[in-house]
């Protein structure tokens, strides 16, 4: 080590660090691989050209899930005028699904009605973000949660790209997340469609195997040229969702976020998280090595102002 000065030390340290990171971090080649859902997962295809805004689905959900009484009866259509801070109605602890009316769309013949509830993603962001593992993606397709495990931190409310999970603010001692579970406990487990699907007089929602519904949706678009926007929302967005949508007007006009991309939310954090264990192992060893290297002369007994001695050497 003839030329051991500060400059060479820094060069060596940088080179070692880069080498360590380059050789010991096994980045997966195709990081965009995505789960895609269980093979026989069920789904629901929602067709907004059919919805007339009758709110039978909201009534059916309220009854099936034993939700508290709403502020207005379900046949009261003045709810479509309601705005809170300029926003239309959203899911809440009393309403796991809502229908909103959109007047300013490309549809000339009248307003468009949109039903909104949990999309039951294949790789849910809520499940990804939950540190107590309260959420489960079931093989039947529903994303369900265990309210007994939920600690009420609301991280999933931030994580969900669709702003779906609602919170029981009204509960003082045990507020938890509340959201649509696709009627898993009472219907889906037994192969039956969710209550909202069964209640709809216009058959806005078609229940079936997710893979079949994708084919059905594209066939419907093909059989009705010009009627639909040629896109099934949820087919690929954020890794695919079990609830998918078809519309005759562009999805942005109905409040859909069309800039979400096809990567599941977890892929934004997956690579960073896989590096953490490796970093926690390598860095202590590496920096201990640097520390020992830098102070080896001190350790050898010569501990009277080593910086001064180095300065004398360099001058």
């Amino acid at each position, binding site marked *: 080590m003839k030329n051991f000065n500060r400059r060479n030390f820094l060069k060596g340290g940088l080179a070692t660090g880069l080498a360590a990171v380059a050789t010991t971090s096994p980045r997966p080649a195709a990081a965009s691989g995505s789960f895609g859902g269980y093979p026989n997962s069920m789904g629901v295809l929602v067709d907004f050209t*059919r919805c*007339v805004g*009758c709110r*039978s689905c909201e*009534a*059916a959900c*309220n*009854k099936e899930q034993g939700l508290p*009484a*709403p*502020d*207005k*009866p*379900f*046949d*009261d259509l*003045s709810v479509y005028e309601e705005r809170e801070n300029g926003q239309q109605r959203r899911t809440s602890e009393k309403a796991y699904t809502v229908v909103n009316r959109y007047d300013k769309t490309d549809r000339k013949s009248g307003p468009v009605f949109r039903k909104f509830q949990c999309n039951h993603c294949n790789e849910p962001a809520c499940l990804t973000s939950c540190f107590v593992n309260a959420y489960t993606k079931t093989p039947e397709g529903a994303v369900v949660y265990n309210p007994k495990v939920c600690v009420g931190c609301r991280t999933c409310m931030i994580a969900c790209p669709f702003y779906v999970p609602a919170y029981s*603010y*009204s509960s003082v001692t045990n507020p938890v997340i509340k959201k649509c579970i696709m009627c898993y406990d009472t219907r889906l487990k037994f*192969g*039956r*469609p969710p209550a909202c*699907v*069964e209640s*709809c*007089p*216009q*058959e806005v929602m*078609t*229940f*079936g*195997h997710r893979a*079949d519904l994708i084919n*059905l949706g594209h*066939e*419907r678009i093909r*059989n009705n040229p010009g009627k639909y926007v040629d896109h099934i929302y949820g087919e690929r967005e954020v890794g695919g969702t079990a609830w998918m949508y078809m519309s005759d007007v562009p999805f942005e006009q109905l409040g859909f976020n069309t800039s979400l991309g096809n990567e599941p939310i977890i892929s934004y954090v997956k690579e960073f998280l896989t590096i953490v264990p490796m970093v926690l192992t390598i860095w202590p060893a590496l920096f201990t090595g640097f520390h020992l290297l830098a102070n080896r002369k001190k350790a050898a007994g010569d501990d009277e102002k080593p910086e001064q001695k180095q300065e004398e050497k360099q001058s």
Partner: protein
Amino acid sequence: MRFTRGKSSIILIGALGVLAVAGNGFSGTGPDAVVLDSLAELYEPVQFNHAMHVELAEGKCAKCHHHTTGAAPLEPRCLACHKGGIDGGVYACRDCHPLKRFEADYLASLTANPQLYHNDKPGLKGALHRNCLGCHVDNGGPSGCKDCHPRNAKGDAAFRAEVVAPPAGHKSGGH
């Protein structure tokens, strides 16, 4: 040759035919009234005036019955297969449109038959509403839920009719 016997039998058969049509109004135009009650749960059954709709359809049974009465269907894309001509004898909506469209057995029947063209056939509830409402809305017919079928007590409970809406400007919840 004398045709008197042939003539009188023609007259007799003709008279019987007229009587048959006038008697129960069935051949050619279907029943006068139908009670649609297969789906009645939250609403009363529909008292459907078939005779009036026959008049409104001006002889075009295909407007509602697609092609099953033998006439060619009105939608152009159906003509490729259903050019018309065969009266299948099946006229009721519920004879083709299933009551339980999304139960596992019906879905399995769709999967089991990949050659089936009509795999997007609506169930009975969807078919009745979608077939009827389009024309009703265009021609000023009844289009509200309760216009065709009043709600029963179970329906009132389901739609929470007992809830009294709070006055305008009321804010619910703690926020």
